[in-house]
Structure formats: structure tokens, C-alpha cells
């Protein structure tokens, strides 16, 4: 079962890293421009909702991708390989679910770290109130994801 998880993760990691890179670039852009006076993202009122939307968007894409990986096994040709491996259906399903869980937790932690890092770099002066908001937000996102998966 662990063996199958390995292949499941190797099959999906590029896509997940892609999402992460995209989130990183967009957030970095937002942070960078929020530092300038008169920028669209200068005020927290605009920065926050867009940031939250971005994170939920990323989580949603990852979620859909993982759903897609189940669908692919059922309706596409790679199912011929997966379902003739000497594994029970529960082992295959379990591996896929655990791999999905690992991705979501990993993605949540990575995004929180990115936020923290960018704050340190771009807006050390804002940390005072932004960090409060972001900690709450990151916590909320992680919580939402773990509830969604269970």
C-alpha cells in the first residue's frame, strides 16, 4: 500500500508544485504592490479578500485535481494498470485518500509559510496588524481543508 502511495504522489507532485508556485508568484506580487502608496492592494480591505480568494481558489483547484485523479483511474486507460496490480480495492482507495490528505496538509503549511516569508520581506511595518489577520486566516484555511477532507 505504501508502494502504491509512492506512485500516486509521484504522479501528482508536479501539478501541486505548479499551484504552489502560482500562489507564491501572485501573493508576492500583491505584497510587493501593497507596499506602494496608492496601489490597488494598499489597503487591507482589498488585500485581505483577494488573498483569501486566491488561497481558496488554489485549494479548490487542488481538490478538483485530486477528484480528477480518481476519475482518471475509472474512465481512462491507466485503470487497466492500477486495477490489475495485486492490491485490494480498499488499498488502492486508501492510498489515494491518504495521498490527497498529505497534499492538502502540505499545501496548507506551505502557503502559511509563504505568507509569513513574504510578510517578513515586503512589509515588516505591517506585520503588527497583518500578521494577526494572516495567522487567523491560515488557521481558518487549514481548518476548512481538514474538515472538507474528513
Amino acid at each position, binding site marked *: 500500500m505504501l508502494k502504491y502511495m509512492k506512485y500516486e504522489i509521484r504522479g501528482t507532485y508536479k501539478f501541486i508544485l505548479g499551484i504552489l508556485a502560482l500562489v507564491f508568484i501572485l501573493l508576492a506580487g500583491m505584497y510587493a504592490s501593497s507596499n506602494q502608496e496608492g496601489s490597488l492592494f494598499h489597503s487591507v480591505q482589498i488585500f485581505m479578500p483577494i488573498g483569501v480568494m486566491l488561497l481558496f481558489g488554489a485549494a479548490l483547484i487542488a481538490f478538483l485535481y485530486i477528484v480528477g485523479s480518481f476519475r482518471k483511474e475509472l474512465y481512462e*486507460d*491507466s485503470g487497466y*494498470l492500477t486495477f*490489475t496490480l*495485486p*492490491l*485490494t480495492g480498499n488499498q488502492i482507495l486508501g492510498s489515494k485518500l491518504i495521498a490527497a490528505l498529505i497534499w492538502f496538509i502540505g499545501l496548507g503549511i506551505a502557503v502559511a509559510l509563504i505568507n509569513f516569508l513574504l510578510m517578513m520581506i515586503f512589509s515588516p511595518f505591517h506585520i503588527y496588524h497583518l500578521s494577526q489577520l494572516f495567522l487567523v486566516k491560515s488557521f481558518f484555511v487549514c481548518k476548512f481543508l481538514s474538515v472538507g477532507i474528513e
Partner: protein
Amino acid sequence: MNKMKNIVEINGLAKHYFRKKALDQLNLTIEEGKVVGILGPNGSGKTTLIKILTGLLRQTGGEVRIGGYKVGVATKSIVSYLPDRNFLYKWMRIKDALKLYQDFYEDFDEKKFEALLDFMKLEKDMKIDTLSKGMHEKLNLSLVLARDAKLYILDEPIAGVDPVARDQILDAIIGNFRENSSMIITTHLVRDMESILDEVVFLKDGRIVLAGNAEQLREEKGKQIDTIYKEVFGA
């Protein structure tokens, strides 16, 4: 008592898709060491039969035993199956496919696989989604034949492949067949495959219409299997 061991025993096998009968009261035994050709036009139930043997579909009725086991994890580890699709994961290189087979099948023989790759002129670093149709077929066959399985199931191994590759594939099948295992081959390219089949089973509308030793059938009817095939299925 020189009784041959039966690798496959199928009794009264039936598969219904709602009211349509894909397989109907099918009985078939395959002895150790035999190469059996399952012949029939499209829609005759060949693929359904194979999917049941490999555990991809569940039968509606009847019993199937492979090596004495009911179809399940135990049979999957002794059956080496070549689907008529590109079944490998798209992100893989050939060496990843090799690792996967090594990880999951204890009977996988890496040396043999390397020899087969050499014979097929394939490189381990090739990416799977860049292979041509013929190369796919060769790679898949190499993986399947490199296992020391009890039963090989090859679904249309030479369909859509050019004549040179076809010969290579047939040579690989003949050269790597093991005495103590059996092989099921489905095809409608009867003429090309005829020489390697010990037994033939003609399948029509989910029933066996003719079955027997290929040599005997040729003698009895005084015709090639290919000609018999055309007679049985011709309009």
C-alpha cells in the same frame, strides 16, 4: 498418471449487461503449457472474458479459477496482462515502469526485461507519452513477458502495428514463453498468429461455437484456421 494441470477453469460463466448477454454459459479449461487463441469478431465477448479473468469486471454467474484461486489479489499476482490500451501512467519514463513492475510483482525479472528492451530497441530513459504506437506495444509486451507468471493474457498484441514490429513481437512472444505457464491471446488477425497457437476457441455472441486443438482442426477440416475463422464468422 500424466494428467496435465489446469491453470484456468471456467464453469458456466455468464456476464449480463442489464438484459444483454455478453457471455452466456461459458465453459473452458486451459492446461499448463498451452497457448490458447480466443478468436472472434468485435463484440463477441473476448474482452469481457478477459476483463473477468483479470479482475476488472465481476461475472454475473458461474465460476472462474486461475491456478486454483478465485479471481482476486492472489490471481492478479500470477496473471500477467497486456491490455489493448496504453495502460502505463503518462508521467513515467520506461525506467519508472520497470520500478513499478519490480515493486508490485515478485516474479518480475529485470535482466529479462533489459534483454527484451534491447531486442525491441527501446531505451530506459524514453518518456512514455512520446512513444509511437508500435513502441508502446513493444514496451508493454516487454513488461508483461518479463514476468514469470502462471498465465499470460495478451489482448490484441499485434493490432495496429507495422509488419516488421509485428514479427518482432511474435518472436518475443515465442522466445519468452515458459513451459510451465499458459497463455491466452485474443486476436482477429488470425493468419499472423496462427502459427503460435496450440488451441483455438471461437467465440460468437458470448458463446463458444468451436474449440479444439489447432493442429487437429486443421487436419479434420483440411483448412487453415484463418479459413475456418472466415467460414464460422462469415456472412
